[in-house]
């Protein structure tokens, strides 16, 4: 079991207010048997990339409600590449206009999930990305 443990960093970049959605996802991932490193509000791209390196995570989940994804996400992706962490899969959740999704994907984001996405879908996407079969 421990040999295939998935470690996920959940972070909330930007200055917007609450992290309820991020916490719901964090709990769902824990309940799906993953280890979730929860870093909380107001994370800068530098903090996120540094934490991902120290924690040696497989996946990063970013929650953004502020509309600042257009600047924040490319910076996170660039820092990850600079640190040699291109293997880490990045998922983005929050309020992202459909028209912005192609650019985010082009910058290397593995998946984008809007509000109301069932947490089971996020769990499945992460497992698929890690090549771990769904149990049951």
């Amino acid at each position, binding site marked *: 079991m421990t040999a295939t*443990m998935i470690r996920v960093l959940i972070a909330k970049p930007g200055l917007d207010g609450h992290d309820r959605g991020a916490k719901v996802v964090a709990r769902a991932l*824990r309940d799906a048997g993953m*280890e979730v490193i929860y*870093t909380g509000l107001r994370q800068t791209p530098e*903090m996120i990339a540094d*934490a991902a*390196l*120290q*924690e040696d995570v497989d996946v990063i989940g970013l929650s953004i409600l502020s509309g600042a994804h257009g600047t924040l996400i490319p910076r996170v992706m660039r820092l990850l590449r600079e*640190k040699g962490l291109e293997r880490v899969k990045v998922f983005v959740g929050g309020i992202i206009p459909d028209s912005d999704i192609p650019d985010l994907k082009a910058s290397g984001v593995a998946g984008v999930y809007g509000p109301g996405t069932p947490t089971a879908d996020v769990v499945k996407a992460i497992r698929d990305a890690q090549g771990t079969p769904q149990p049951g």
Partner: protein
Amino acid sequence: MRRERRSPGNPLRMPTLTERIAAGDRRALATLISRIEKHDPEAPAILGALHERTGRAMVVGITGAPGTGKSTLVAALAGAFRRGTAGHPPRTVGILAVDPTSPFSGGAILGDRIRMRDLAGDEGVFIRSMASRGRLGGLSHATDSAVRALDAAGFETILIETVGVGQDEVDIARQTPTVIVVESPGTGDDIQALKAGILEIADILVVNKADMPGADTTFESLCAMLGLGGGEGDGWKTPVMKTTAATGEGVDALAEAIHRHRAYLRESGEGRRRERERAEADLRERLRERLFERWRQSGRMDLAEMARKVAARECSPEEAVEELLK
């Protein structure tokens, strides 16, 4: 063999994980800790190669009930060590923050980093969150190895945060040279640590959240409780200290007390005694594991079948063991 050993001089050769860790490569350190957690068969050899670089760090365990402010205190302490205090120059800091694994899913939420935001961006700090993972071989084994990895990477102070509730967590604390037990007011009249039986392993007792009402009462009851135990002549007298981790009040004084305890361990010989004791317990545990493994691999006997016989009262456990060792 000899030629191979010279090859580190070859600039085209990729440095090994061991060499990268020794050179302070943070990514290599993170990778080694993951391998330790996964029981990677190569991890023991890497740790073995790093062994001669270990033993330099000042290792401190911080334990106590959930919510007493351990993570906030660890962050504040790390800040104090990084800045340096009156009598001591700045030191680099490695942090291991251990949180429990959910017994239902095997997953975990590791939230200690939330309180350690101020340490971000400092290359002299390395923070790693660990889940207790009900592992075979025990949690203390994995944290012990992770501490050695941080030590070998050159971190001068290592702070280990554990929730002081389970036996495993108490064991980790017990293994560290300096143990800090954290209490806070407002958790009722009773002292949490007393229930968990961890008060007696404290080298320093801290009443955190000194800004909150009831802190003085908690402080006084802890002092009274320690007084009951009686002083042991000229040995170490466990101090009770007040901190407000949220503002940093009292944290420099705590850092100084940690230095004092380290000096005491060194000067009294107690440090060497504890280190020997710890090494012996560790070796015994490793031997037990290896001997069992060797027996299991060489044995033609079936443990499960023997267990069935014992359960069915066909033979006694005493007879079964004799039989299994034949």
